[in-house]
């Protein structure tokens, strides 16, 4: 079922129109399987729209977008993709465990999967370090804890592709480090492909590959080292700023 290139995600001329405004302008990119790809750029540059297009919840998508060998949004993809929205999408009037139990029951319905579900929920709780809060009502948790519940729900089915929209916003440095090491474990041990968006540039260094976005277009695409070397800067943040200035200059020259 894989396409010839073997990419986990492959986009050709990906365009999205929202409310009359073109949010993504003919993007071409690929995401390698089993790697962590960081999607970076300022807020409002179209990161979330791109992720929604990949998981198949975005309307008015044109161009080609293949995910795990199928067109994005194909029904067979739904159990294979874990998706964490920017705002935590969990039931605040259920406990953490009840939230995960329900989402696990959607992924693996039926009594014969009960043990597998219980194991999956226990593992997800450990992964996001919420075992001690398992029976707390989600509505009483802090913002960072709620983000982790949402992430835990996405980890449940051991998905082949994890699409994480700003998963580390509002988390303390220790937890951010732990989550990034979890992401690396998932990629290394399970071959999970991760597409992680962030507007915090220091997280870029932790990705295998980066897609730098600005105003609905891909500004640069490559490993963090390659981007730094290309722009002759010490950090990805500086490289990004350099690229933005370069793009602005070439835009002015074109006029």
């Amino acid at each position, binding site marked *: *079922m*894989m396409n010839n290139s073997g990419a986990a995600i492959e986009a050709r001329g990906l365009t999205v129109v929202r409310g009359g405004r073109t949010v993504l302008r003919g993007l071409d990119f690929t995401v390698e399987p089993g790697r962590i790809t960081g999607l970076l750029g300022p807020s409002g540059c179209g990161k979330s729209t791109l992720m929604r297009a990949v998981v198949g919840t975005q309307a008015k998508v044109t161009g080609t977008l293949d995910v795990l060998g199928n067109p994005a949004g194909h029904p067979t993809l739904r*159990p294979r993709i874990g998706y964490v*929205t920017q705002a935590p999408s969990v039931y605040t009037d259920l406990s953490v465990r*009840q939230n995960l139990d329900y*989402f696990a029951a959607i992924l693996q319905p039926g*009594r014969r999967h009960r043990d597998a579900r219980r194991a999956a929920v226990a593992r997800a709780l450990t992964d996001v370090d919420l075992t001690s809060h398992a029976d707390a009502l989600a509505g009483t948790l802090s913002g960072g804890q709620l983000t982790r519940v949402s992430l835990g729900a996405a980890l449940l089915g*051991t998905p*082949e592709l994890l699409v994480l929209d700003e998963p580390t916003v509002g988390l303390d440095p220790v937890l951010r480090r732990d989550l990034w090491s979890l992401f690396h474990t998932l990629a290394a041990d399970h071959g999970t492909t991760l597409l992680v968006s962030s507007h915090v540039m220091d997280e870029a260094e932790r990705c295998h590959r980066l897609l730098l976005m600005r105003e609905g277009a891909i500004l640069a695409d490559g490993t963090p080292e390659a981007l730094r070397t290309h722009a002759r800067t010490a950090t990805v943040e500086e490289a990004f700023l350099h690229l933005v200035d370069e793009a602005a200059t070439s835009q002015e020259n074109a006029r």
Partner: protein
Amino acid sequence: MSTANTPQQATATPQAPTGGRDRPGPQALSPARTLATAARVLRQLTHDPRTVALLLLIPVVLITLLRYVFDGSPQTFDAIGASLLGIFPLITMFLVTSIATLRERTSGTLERLLAMPLGKGDLIAGYALAFGAVAILQSLLATALSVWVLGLDVVGSPWLLLLVALLDALLGTALGLFVSAFAASEFQAVQFMPAVIFPQLLLCGLFIARDRMAPALEAVSNVLPMSYAVDGMNEVLHHTEVTGNFVRDVLIVSGCALLVLALGAATLRRRTT
């Protein structure tokens, strides 16, 4: 617990061609997912005992109030009381469902669920089952109190009253689900209650027999489902046996509920802008 229990991990590479096939895929309606959804909705209610208390007690209190308002004319209490036993579940389930699904839409959980292998039918049937169960409990309390304590004079079987009440609850759930698609906030959602329910309340024959209304209004009342809900209640009130009219009323109310549920399903979009 062995990790081999999870079929996903048994696959050597995530991109293997069979990667997605050993997992249960999405179907139009899966009983296990529907039941899980219904259980989840009920579990949410157990964390909100005040709502449960309000749902169960308000009809009981209002029907008691009605009984003593019409203390001097028991016939009026019989007619209005029976109708109200059908109208309570419709109104409360309409309100509860429209707010619950609106919250599901605005909190992002609906987007998560629709990105997962959950059929739209599972979600809707899950809600209908959960709120149907609450409606049964609500109607049992109100009907039992009315018939055995407040002396509501029913010629037919109280079980038939309960049946109509349950169908009314489903109709309310269906209407609430449908209407929530057009509400952007809770403020708008509650305003749909007077907009959708009140006209039906005025025209359903509760205040005056439908054939004594202006002909145009009678025609309108003929196509509103609540008219048949109230009519069904009155059939049970006056006849010992199951009448042809009662069967017609029950079929119309259930047909409307199913139709609106289908319309509600159409408003759940996997892809949104």
